[in-house]
């Protein structure tokens, strides 16, 4: 297990005041919050920031952390000394955020690192595990998870087997994560960011009360070829200069396969050709999206005498042509 330098995470010296910690946390949280930030590693960064804050904002946890860790550097191999926490008492406290997804359920569940748990125990992180609400009869909680599907799945509809980590209370009252597999039908025409509700697939109820629901948030895996905007899909269509200038019939890739597309003569780069209704299919009563082929001009390399001559002949033929002026610049 690696030592985590919580001060470094928040960019603070060990002498920072509680106010410094609060300010540093708020500033970094605004920057890296996964709902706000577009950075690719925002979710991981936010998790670290959150965990650092969770320890340092609490004077008792901070004192304990300072005592055990002052000689360590971030990333160093770490093992807590025996009885290191004698004299401290950690409260469960409110559950800090885990950001969306985060691998677990509910979003309220703080996804603590092994390092954190070795110091403060799984109970200290609040969330689902440390919230044993007892009632004679209570409906189970709703659960949330993210599902990554391919764009093609949304075009055709699909069945996907997903696995979820579900907190489950054992006979000794300890809560452990248990793997659960579900086969789920992905409806044709579903869009990224939409949610599927599976009734009764959340946490089981207590005392005969009904189970909660499971909400699955749909995300598309990155596609090297297609970009998706709501129901509309975009694909780049490279053309040779003569195809763009003279017009041509070319093959274009769509998520449903190859189609033939007529490129009008005099087409400029960036022009969009719309294939109506070839975007994501409609769901009941709706309209399908459109597919746009965005034209790009590819220049063949001048890597042979013949090719160089062809470019030279072009230059001659277009004697007065000034590419800078034509662009309107």
């Amino acid at each position, binding site marked *: 297990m690696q030592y985590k330098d919580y001060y470094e995470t928040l960019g603070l010296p060990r002498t920072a005041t509680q106010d410094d910690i609060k300010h540093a946390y708020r500033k970094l949280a605004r920057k890296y919050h996964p709902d706000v930030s577009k950075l690719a590693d925002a979710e991981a960064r936010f998790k670290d920031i959150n965990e650092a804050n969770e320890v340092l904002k609490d004077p008792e946890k901070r004192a304990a952390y300072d005592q055990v860790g002052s000689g360590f550097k971030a990333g160093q191999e770490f093992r807590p000394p025996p009885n290191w926490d004698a004299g401290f008492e950690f409260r469960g406290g409110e559950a800090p955020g885990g950001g969306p997804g985060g691998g677990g359920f509910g979003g309220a569940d703080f996804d603590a690192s092994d390092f954190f748990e070795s110091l403060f125990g799984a109970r200290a992180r609040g969330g689902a595990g440390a919230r044993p609400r007892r009632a004679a009869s209570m409906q189970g909680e*709703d659960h949330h998870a993210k599902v990554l599907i391919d764009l093609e799945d949304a075009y055709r509809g699909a069945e996907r087997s997903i696995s979820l980590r579900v907190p489950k209370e054992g006979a000794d009252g300890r809560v452990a994560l248990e793997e659960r597999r579900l086969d*789920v*039908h992905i409806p044709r025409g579903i869009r990224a960011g939409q949610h599927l509700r599976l009734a009764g697939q959340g946490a089981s109820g207590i005392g005969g009360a009904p189970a909660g629901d499971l909400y699955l948030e749909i995300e598309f895996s990155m596609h090297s070829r297609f970009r998706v905007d709501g129901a509309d899909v975009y694909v780049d269509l490279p053309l040779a200069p003569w195809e763009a200038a003279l017009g041509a019939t070319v093959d274009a890739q769509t998520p449903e396969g190859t189609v033939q597309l007529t490129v009008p003569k005099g087409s400029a780069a*960036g022009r969009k050709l719309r294939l109506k209704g070839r975007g994501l299919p409609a769901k009941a009563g709706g309209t399908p999206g459109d597919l746009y082929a965005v034209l790009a001009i590819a220049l063949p390399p001048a890597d042979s005498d013949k090719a160089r001559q062809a470019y030279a002949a072009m230059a001659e033929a277009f004697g007065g042509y000034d590419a800078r002026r034509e662009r309107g610049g």
Partner: protein
Amino acid sequence: MKEATSFALRGSVVEDELTLTTFELCRACNASEEHIELWVSEGVLQPTGAGRDEWRFGGRSLARMRVAMRLARDLEINSSGVALALDLLDEIEALEARLRRESAPRLRP
């Protein structure tokens, strides 16, 4: 992965097929009715129906409400700050969508 088994669970697409009651939205977002009332009064949620017992929320309220709850909790900002942040996030999203649509393909060598 894609072979047809008739045992696969079928769900409802929240955004297209469902409206949620106050109770359902509370459960789905782990929120109290007071939370919901707060977000309605801030204009973050716009239900139809007269009082909170008759409110019906469009399916898109689910994601909006969850983001609102996370921002309020993680960034420690008040409800009008969250409302502002959500409006700005919507605006950024719309601008980025426009950028994606209009992004001119690069010239290739």
